[in-house]
């Protein structure tokens, strides 16, 4: 893959730290590397686009720009999103794939993890959800599944 250097999770130097934003999908906590996050906005009206894949929820207006929004819940095979007051759209800026938003149930906090506290995940072919993760981090609040944006955001939608 041409852009496999975009997510250098395996190459995080030992002894240094990485910051993650912790989000919730249902009861589970997920971490997204902070360097890919451009912005976090409140839930707003999403304009549906007809005839696209189900996980693409539509487009929103972000400061005059039209940005697509996708649902990671649907992408990961979870229950469809239910909008609450806590729902947020995280705007990601990915080098190769441009800007897009992902819907999450809640944004909890920012954690700083030492790189030696991030464990690689044992690949389990049966667990479909594991293919969207690139590791597990241990923090005071418990275990955080670290999202592999490479896998979550399809390259060619």
């Amino acid at each position: 893959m041409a852009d496999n250097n975009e997510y250098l999770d395996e190459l995080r130097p030992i002894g240094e730290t990485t910051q993650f934003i912790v989000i919730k999908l249902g009861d589970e906590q997920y971490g997204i590397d902070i360097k890919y996050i451009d912005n976090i906005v409140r839930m707003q009206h999403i304009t549906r686009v007809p005839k696209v894949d189900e996980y693409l929820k539509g487009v929103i207006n972000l400061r005059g720009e039209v940005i697509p929004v996708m649902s990671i819940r649907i992408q990961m095979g979870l229950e469809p999103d239910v909008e609450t007051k806590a729902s947020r759209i995280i705007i990601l800026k990915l080098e190769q794939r441009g800007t897009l938003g992902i819907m999450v149930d809640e944004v909890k906090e920012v954690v700083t993890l030492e790189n030696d506290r991030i464990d690689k995940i044992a690949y389990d072919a049966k667990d479909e959800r594991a293919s969207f993760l690139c590791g597990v981090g241990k923090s005071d609040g418990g275990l955080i599944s670290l999202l592999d944006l490479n896998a979550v955001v399809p390259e060619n939608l």
Partner: protein
Amino acid sequence: MDVSQYLEIFLDETNEHLQNLNTQILSLEQDPENNDTINEIFRAAHSLKGMAGTMGYKRMQTLTHDMENVFSEVRNGNIKVTADMIDVLFQCLDALEEYNTNIRESSDEGTNDNGALIKRLNDIMSGGAGAESAPAAAAPAPAAAEEAPAADNGFSGIKLGEAQRSVLGEAIKMGKNVYGLTVKVQESCILKAARAFLVFKAIEETSEIIVSDPSSQDIEDEKFEQHFSLIIVSETELETVLNAARGVSEIEEVTGSALKPEDMKVSEEDSGAAEVQSAPAAQEAPAAQEAPAVQAAPAAPAEPTVQDTPAAAVPAAQKAAAAAPAAKKQTASKPVVNRTVRVDIEKLDTLMNLVSELIIAKNSLVSASAMSGNSSQAVNEQIEYLESVTTSLHESVMKVRMVPIESTVNKFPRMVRDLQKKLGKKMELYMSGEETELDRTVVDQIGDPLMHLLRNSADHGLESAAVRKERGKPEVGSIFLDAYQDGNNVVIEVRDDGNGIDTNAVKNKAIERGVITPEQGEAMSEKEIIDLLFNAGFSTAKVVSDVSGRGVGLDVVKSMIESLSGEVEVKSKLGEGSTWTIRLPLTLAIIQALMVEIGDEKYAIALGSIQTIEDILPSEVKLVQAKEVITLRDQVIPLIRLNEVLEVPSKKGPEDNLVVVVVKKGDKLAGLVVDELIGQLEIVIKSLGKYINKCKIISGATVLGDGEVALILDANTLI
């Protein structure tokens, strides 16, 4: 001197000059005698040389210098334009182009001396030198003959009105010279008026024409035999003026002398007596014809007269410009001083973006004022004013970005000429509508697809001369490139009178390549088969040539045009030729749109594609082949229920009247059924990005006044 800061300008201007040279040399090939063209070429080569020299590109300078020398000899009539020479000149242009590319890439011209080319140029020069002696020997001493015939000359018959006399008197007082000229046009000349016009123009570069006989109106209407006479006021030498006039082709001779005040006759009547005057002029003609014949010898190397700034030629020039429509072509090639500014396209993009922002802000203001409900009259008036200002601002910025497609299509005649040699077929390219304007970014990118299509026509479309003859067609194949504006679109057509598309061959090839199965092939319509051509990796050429036939052409064409939000269509008739039609939107950024509501979603439809809006009773909807249609003014129009296409529940019941937006694509119509009309709005088109480009019926999105996003329906793909 550090010249790097001028590099951009240098490259731009070099490109322009090269393009100009290409065009001019092509027209020189058609009309080797045209002095205007030769002068223009000389000037362009000269400027190129100067620029290259300033920038320190020695090799480029040497080559252009030698080219200039050749043109200079041609201009002086010492060597004739030959087919061989044209070939060499084109090679020179290619070499210059190469230098230019090198400079663009590395700001260095490269190390290719093009010695062979320079040698050939010099050969042409020395070949010309041999011929030079002939006219020189034939030239008798002209000096003495010059003044003698003055008395008998046609111009002395010109009668002057009071006003003209006073103008001339004034001129003499101011130390200017007054000359009388008689010009004789060759007997074989067909466009006498045009030649006369060129003489007028040449003279006006240094002088002011006071009066002519016959009148300029009569000259324009070709109401003269072979002669016409002029009285002019000039600051330059008589010889310079005479040479300028002699420089025009098909002019047999020009004679003249200085006039003194007492030479000027007063007309019995006033200046309106042109008809009477033409008679004496014609009678005197034979005399004038014989006496100064010796002067026909080639003039000494004429100085580029253009450089002498004309003092007061303007009013007369205007008159003359109106006088000879036949000479229009020649005038177009004369560079006029443009009052222009070169602007970086990026600055224009920024400006356009700001205008877009402004329009969004204006739309927000409109909806905010509507929301607040109790908006006063004054606020509304101001908003309306703002609206009209933003609209005209947008239009002006858009116009700034529009350039004629000329700059792109100009290189095609040359390309077709080269193809002709390479393919060994006879063909001619006819272009029209080069002045059609398009957004600069589109013009820049439309070149490659058009080139592909032209090559395709030349290579696959046109048959060889032998086959054409057999089929009773003219041996020379024709390729047409027509551009024109059609509503909010610009249409560019590439047409040839060649073989057309052999659908059977295409079908077999597709089956062979595994693009379709034989069963699919059976079921496909002709149009579907032709569309297969746009498939990647498809080429029916039996031999891969370096012109086309690698199968990378048409799919690239299609995707490039689609990336410009355009579309390409092909119509073909076997044995008669094919037409490729490219349809491009006039602007890419801001359009007028009709906002409609379907279910609880808002959509925009470009106003340019909308024909009418109709209110239709449910009973008027008929079924034809299980498809809903309506009949409007004797035309059957298929209905498209947008709520079904867009998968939204409609708010309307089956008993309600239908709101139908009739849209047009080319000559096809369709009725789009919507729930409600909201109104007209100026919208800024935003791309949906590559994540959502799968949805073909949506061509983009726009941000509405309330901050919501509405999608733009592409009527073209719905039809």
